[in-house]
Structures are given as C-alpha cells and as structure tokens.
C-alpha cells in the first residue's frame, strides 16, 4: 500500500501551549483515514498542518516533518498555494462565499486560469455530482449560495474542494452541525470519492469513524495513542484509553 502522507515527530505549539507532542502517522492512498479524539487532542491542528493552513494561525511554531509523496511540505521553499491545490480542505462550519452557487464552485478553477466556459461548466457539474448536490441545485446555479440549507452548503463546500482537482481531501468535522440525513449524504459521497482521492476525516463522532473509515487514529492531549485499521481499533484496541473513548466514557 502506498503512503500518501507521513508525519514524523511532528510538534506544534501556540506560544507556550503544546498542541502536538511528536506525532508520527502514515496516511494511505485511496483510503479514508479517520482522526478521532476529544476536544483539544490536536487532531484538527494536525490536518491544518497538512495543507499549511496553520500558517494563518498566529504564533504557531512547528517542528518535525510532514511528507506528501515523499516531499517535505514544511520546507520554507514550498509553494503553499500550489500545495493547497493538491490538498483540499472542508471545514467544520460550511462557509459559502457570498456569491452564486456556480461562482463558489468555480472559485478555485478560476484561480488556475480555467476560465473557458464549457470546460469550467463541466468541471462544476462534475464536482457537484460527486458531492451528491447536482440534482438539488442544477436549476439554480446562479442563485446565491447563502440561500442553501446547512447540509446543502456543506456539500457545496465539498464540491468546491473537489473542483480544485486535489489528490487529498481533508475534512475537519464536516458533519458536526448537520442533521442525520445530510450526514448520510456526505458519508455516501465520501465512500464514492475514496476511489479517486486520499481522504482524512477528523471527527469526534466515533460511530461515523467506525462507519466509513478504513484506518482510524486516536489522539489524546496531542499524542497519537493508537493507530490501525478501523476494524482493529474498534474491535480490539490495544490501549485502555482508546477503549474508554470508543465506549463513550469520555470525550
């Protein structure tokens, strides 16, 4: 199996507060990897390092290394803008840009100078289809994205990320604010998407992790406690903490 992302002894702190205390983890290609753990475990910060969105946090200091396809992305010489095209991200709260549905999806492609009408339209259509949103919005692509429901907005954000044609998709608790039906639709979409993409899903919904991921990692207080196939982690965890967490004793 190919390793897509590898972190080595990754440490992160905000000022004096240590968030990650030396995390080494591999993310496999064309799989869904789930990062779970209670609030403050560092799982969200971890993925925001993977596409360098961490750069926008003030006074963050990072040490260690993060490789994507064997290349260190923490290298100062790396073009982080290009990196973010390869590593897309969906946030916990859906944040549509204040423009039309079509323009939201086309935002990324247009930055790459993909402006030609037909190519762009088919890319938008394809992305919306992959996010299972096409049928709901195909008649109103030019209306404001802010008019969509919460679940639709989150799938719009997913489609928007897909339109970047990334290799990796990072999802930061994408279903935290959504109802079960919307959640199901997103999970359905992710299941299809893993054929083409490497997916990292951060969630503290253990059931969701169990349902759709291939690998699962459990973080606690900035440390990777346990990592393995989802089946292994959920049925036969080797650490007591993991078991407690899965059973809902804390979190």
């Amino acid at each position, binding site marked *: 199996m190919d390793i897509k992302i590898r972190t080595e002894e990754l440490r992160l702190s905000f000022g004096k507060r240590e968030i990650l205390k030396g995390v080494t983890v591999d993310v496999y290609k064309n799989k869904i990897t789930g990062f779970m753990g209670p609030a403050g475990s560092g799982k969200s910060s971890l993925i925001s390092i993977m596409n360098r969105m961490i750069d926008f946090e003030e006074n963050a200091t990072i040490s260690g290394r993060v490789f994507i396809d064997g290349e260190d992305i923490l290298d100062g010489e790396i*073009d982080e803008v290009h*990196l973010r095209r390869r590593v897309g991200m969906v946030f916990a709260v859906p944040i549509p840009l204040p423009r039309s549905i079509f323009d939201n999806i086309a935002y990324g492609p247009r930055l790459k100078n993909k402006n030609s009408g037909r190519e762009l339209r088919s890319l938008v259509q394809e992305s919306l289809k992959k996010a299972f949103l096409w049928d709901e919005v195909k008649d109103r692509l030019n209306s404001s994205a802010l008019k969509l429901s919460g679940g639709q907005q989150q799938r719009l954000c997913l489609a928007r990320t897909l339109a970047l044609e990334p290799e990796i998709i990072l999802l930061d608790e994408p279903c935290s604010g959504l109802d079960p039906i919307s959640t199901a639709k997103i999970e359905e979409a992710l299941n299809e998407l893993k054929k083409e993409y490497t997916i990292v899903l951060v969630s503290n919904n253990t059931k969701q992790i169990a349902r759709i991921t291939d690998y699962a990692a459990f973080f606690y207080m900035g440390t990777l406690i346990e990592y393995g196939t989802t089946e292994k982690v959920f049925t036969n965890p080797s650490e007591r903490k993991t078991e407690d967490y899965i059973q809902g004793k804390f979190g």
Partner: protein
Amino acid sequence: MIKKALTKEHFVKYILTAFALSSLLFLFLIFIFILSEGIPLFHKVGLKNIIFGFKWAPTKGSFGIFPMIVSSFLVTFGALMVGAPLGLSCAIYLSEYSGKKLKLFLKPALELLAGIPSVVYGFLGVIYIVPLVRNFLGGPGFSLLATSIILGVMIFPTVISISFDALMSVPKTYREGSFAMGATKWQTIYKVIIPSARSGILASFILGMGRAIGETMAVIMVAGNALRIPTSILDPLRTLTSNIALELAYATGDHRLGLFSTGVVLLVIIMILNYIATFAIRRRVLK
C-alpha cells in the same frame, strides 16, 4: 513539487507598503514645508515676540500673533458653548425619547448636514446672524458671538452623531437595572447613561473642537478679522486660520514667512488636541 515563485505577490506587497508609506511621506512633507518656511522667522524675530507679541504688522516687521491664538481658543470655546449642550441634549432626546423612525431618518440627515460646505454656513451667518447681533446687541455684528453661533451650528452634526452613538452603545441592562431600582427616566439618564457614555461624549466634543479651531472660510466671513483681542463677545476678532487665509495671497518675503509661522503655531495646537483626542478615544476602547 513546485517551489515558491510568488513574484507577483511580492510585487503587490511592495506596492502596498509603498502606498501605506505614502501617508507618512505626505505628513512628513507637510511638516517639513510648513516648518521650514515658518521656523526661520522664529529665529529672526524671536519665539517670544511672535507667540506673545500683540502687534501684527508684517510689512513693518511686527509678527505678534498672541491675539490670534487667544481668539482661536475663544471661538472654539464659544462654538462648544453653543454646540455642545444643544447637540448633546439633541442626542439624548434622539437616543432615549424618540421613536425608531426618527432614529432611522437621523443618520443620513446628519451626514447631509455635515456635508454642507462650511462656506454656506458662513454665508448664512453673514446674512442672518450678523445683522441680528448688530441690531439687537450692538457692535458691528461681525463678532465673537456670531462666529461662535455659526461654528456651534457647524459642529452640531459631529456632536450629535458621535454622542448619539455613545449613548446608544450603553447596554440595555444598565437602563433596566436603574428602572428596576425605581429611578425615573431622567435620573437614569443623568446618573447611569451619561456617566457610562462619558468618554464617547467627550470625544464628540473634542472632535467638534477640532473642526471649530480649524475652520477658516466661514470664520473669515463672520468674524470681522480685527487684530485686537476682543474685550466683549460683540467685538470682531481674527483667528490663526483666518490670518493665513486673509493674507496668504498677497504675502511675500517675511510677510509670507509670518503666515507660515502662524501655520506652525496652528499645527502645534492641532497636534496637541489630536493627541488628547486619541487619548480620550483610546480610553473609551479600553473600558
């Protein structure tokens, strides 16, 4: 993977830095040119003879601007006497007693009034206020009183709009708490609302002062521009600003330098006032 090649981004950042620096450059130029024209005369005639001199006869070698400094403060104080109480009570009325519709109408109306050119205020002063003062109170009408009234009216919009904002930003709970303790509306306003909006109200007065002390053309029109310190509110007077504007077009040599010295003094006064204003406003933010 592609390495950094963000030359455009760098270019943009340099341009924007240059833009941001332009403000500093302009400030620097303004200071340099006003000071470099104004300071030599201080050396030549003496700081004391300019700032505390009573005689302004620049073509005959006297550059005293003390009466104008006093007059500038007098008209500013006068403007506050007229504008502050009326403006503040108007703001209190609008924030505490008036309905929603009036409040909605208020902002654009005040913006419009703040936008009316000062020369228009000056003109109306000459047509209506000056004769009124002359006929009912005596003197030439062009006077400290007329100037104070005109400047007072001019700072209405500033005072009303900023103290209105300050009053409106007092939390509702303060009012409710006060009412719950059995206070009447006026007691609430007087004892609770005004004290908590105090620094905002103060800021509105200081900004109003800034506008009054810097006003030029309207003052020239109604002040009469006499060179003596007024002994009554009915006497004409000349401010620092109007001294510059009245004579700049004609002045050469030392006379022109004298006007720049006037400018230097005005600039210093304004900077001190600004400093006080930012101090008051910053304190409000901290609260």
